[in-house]
């Protein structure tokens, strides 16, 4: 399988610990890859390096085996791009923006534009400054998809989109994948990544801390239990159980997380008088937050990366 994106030791050091450090990443052709991390983790920096907007401190990036810094024009022929923040086109109408950006690519396919605008429910006759933030984002999607690129680089593409349009966007991504194109999308919303991506990379403070298929990450999943007792909470027995984490107890109410089997915990709970027990499986978002919130990053993390 071809490689759509490859980075080797890609680093952008802004000083003071900010930036992106030693990114080794490979995204296969035809893959939908989710790039996750909290604000300031380095997602947009990675995307801007791929798009040759900014220059690496060291390391290199390639798109379809073309060096992003040496041959940026060739790279951009293959790429459709949605920036994190849409540019201000002021008084230009949506259709004029489409014609202008299309003109820079040698012409816009009216049929493709019309289809995209209809699907996204976007009126191209309005002036850009009259668009809501959601409509500006839709225009960005039209500009990125209209020339049927081999690679879509999307920086938080669903920001500001309403749920119905988000569903349409997911369908568009599905179609893009079916025709063999690659999608690299950044997000801090795990649920949308969970919905459309095959693999995810997790970024934290400029370091890639994990790359894995979604199903491989399920071992990180856990159950959260909430238990009400009639009398005292048997805290010592509960804390002694294997796989127990984040135990919190107040009055006769207990909350804890359980990794793996719940049998030992149920036995410990039996030492008290249980009135009510509720359990639920956290979303991937909560899973990742719990996993990466407090871990230090640095050289030790590099060994954990499963790229």
């Amino acid at each position, binding site marked *: 399988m071809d490689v759509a994106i490859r980075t080797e030791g890609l680093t952008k050091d802004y000083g003071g610990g900010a930036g992106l450090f030693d990114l080794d990443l490979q995204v296969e052709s035809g893959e939908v890859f989710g790039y996750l991390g909290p604000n300031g983790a380095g997602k947009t920096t990675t995307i801007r390096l791929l798009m040759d907007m900014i*220059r690496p401190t060291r390391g290199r990036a390639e798109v379809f085996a073309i060096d992003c810094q040496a041959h*940026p024009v060739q790279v*951009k022929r293959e790429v459709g791009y949605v920036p994190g923040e849409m540019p201000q086109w002021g008084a230009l109408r949506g*259709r*004029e923006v489409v014609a202008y950006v299309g003109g820079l690519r040698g012409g816009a396919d009216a049929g493709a534009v019309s289809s995209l605008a209809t699907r996204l429910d*976007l009126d191209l*006759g309005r002036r850009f400054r009259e668009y809501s933030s959601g409509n500006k984002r839709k225009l960005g999607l039209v500009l990125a998809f209209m020339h049927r690129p081999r690679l879509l680089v999307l920086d938080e593409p669903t920001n500001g989109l309403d749920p119905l349009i988000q569903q349409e966007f997911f369908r568009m991504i599905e179609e893009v994948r079916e025709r063999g194109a690659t999608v690299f999308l950044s997000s801090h919303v795990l649920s949308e990544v969970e919905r459309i991506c095959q693999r995810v990379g997790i970024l934290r403070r400029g370091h890639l801390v994990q790359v894995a298929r979604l199903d491989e990450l399920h071992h990180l999943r856990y159950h959260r239990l909430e238990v009400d007792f009639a009398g005292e909470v048997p805290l010592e027995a509960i804390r002694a159980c294997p796989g127990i984490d984040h135990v919190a107890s107040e009055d006769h109410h207990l909350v804890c997380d359980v990794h793996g089997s719940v049998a030992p915990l149920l036995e410990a709970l039996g030492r008290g008088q249980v009135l009510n027990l509720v359990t639920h499986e956290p979303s991937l978002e909560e899973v990742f937050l719990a996993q990466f919130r407090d871990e230090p990053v640095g050289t030790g993390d590099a060994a954990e990366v499963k790229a």
Partner: protein
Amino acid sequence: MSTATASVPPTTLRLRRRRAPLVRFGLRSQRWWFAAIAFIGFVAPYSTGATYLAAVPNAAARATFAQATQTIGTALAYLIPVPQRPDTVAGYMWWKGLTFLTLLFAAWGLAAAVSLVRADEERGVTEIWLATPVARVRALLSGTGAFIAAVLGAAAFTALGIGGGLEVAKVSASAGAVIGQCLPLVGIAMACFAIGLVVAQLASTRRGALGLGTVVLLALYTVDALARVNAGMVGVAVISPFHLADISTPLVPGGSLDGAATVSLFAIAVVLVALAVLGFARRDLYASLLRRRGRIVRITVTPSGNPFFREAILSRLWQQRIGLVGWTAGTAIGAALLVSIAHSTGGVLKGMGGISRLLTASGTAGDPSLYVVSSIWFGIAALVLAAYAIAQVTRWASDDVEGRLEMEIAQPVARWRVVLQRIVSLTLVSALIAAVGSLVTGAILPSQGLDIGTGPLVLSTALLVPLALSYGALGALIISRVPRIAMGLLSFIAVLGFYLPLFVPLFRWPDWVQDFSFFHLYGTPLVTGVFWTGLWIMLGIIVVGFGGATLAMSRREVGR
């Protein structure tokens, strides 16, 4: 446990409260305008006073000069106020330095008001303020207060310039007259600011408000101009802040401060600010006070078929078509007005012994009418082209700051092509503006008894293009490092360049210092041909500037 640890206050992270944040923000917004106007406010009267005696050293020369100035001023009455006592330093200073400042203070007022209302709203700043416990009235009045403070500061610099200019010319004037002469400047700025505030409630965008405000001010200026040439219009002219400002001349010997007119200026400002506050309180944020009825619109889902958008350079031109018409029409009108008085003005100049040296230096000793066309009209045309180039550089800088450049180079477009497109579009439009101005000039010249042939006219026109490109090249270089300050810095360079030819003889600086002025480098090609040194320097700046900008563009980082 130590007692020191126990006594640590629990609120160590309490934020420091700053007083009057809205006024501080307003002052910060005005800083560039303030710097520019304060600088010009000081330099314009000072340089007028300082050069007056050198130009007319004795009583005879002064009388001839005054007669000529009076004649020229009367001929130009539909453009600028009629001179008063130009035989005195103070009179000439009022006419040459201060009437021009009236226009600048007025423009500042309009720009500041539009910025306070519409630009802050478009940037989302107003919404942030109003999301805090700040009433709309307070938000608007705080900005107004900041503007008043800035205007008073600029007026103080103007007063210093007037005092300094008179001091250098060894003329005494009372502090009351100097301060009194600055009062109408503050008044016109306040009145135009208030007009801008009202207009900004009626328009829904910054550009719309600026356009509508400009039309209103031009109309009011026209009323004042008509009153100058038609006594029957004086009754109507009291509605014009320009008229109310111009009739106060306490600095001019025999003149006085028109108390009623000055109070009227401030009264207009107060009433209009109150109206603007009412309007702001009633309207929706981001909307005009005049709501349009909702209309059924057809949804469009196809790209524009406009052929201009298929090519980057044509697209750039199309996007600025309205401004382009304005620049071109303005230049044509300016050419028509100034060239049509070349003969009468030249006749007056011919009778003036005092400026024969000036005419000889400009190469027009034989025909002073030619001096009017060559030095005055083409001097103004050079200023127009410089202003256009600065406007373009500002546009390039905003392309960067507002993310359009990022989107452009996210397409398969080499970075050097972006710089090339800018050069080509600046060249084309500069050539167009210069050509239209010259066509009008060429059409009117025969009526003034001037036959200079096509060659010199074409040469003078063609050389305006490298002048505009020099500003463009310098601007391109500046925006590759610091896009946000490009307009201010370039404007400062232009203003300095405009005054430099005045300063060099005044302060007895070496002649080569004049070469830092693009206006000097342009020369007077209509009568003296190409100033080769100037042309080579300009070409060098163009090559180095745009070359450096291309190199910087290929290496620099783009993105907000």
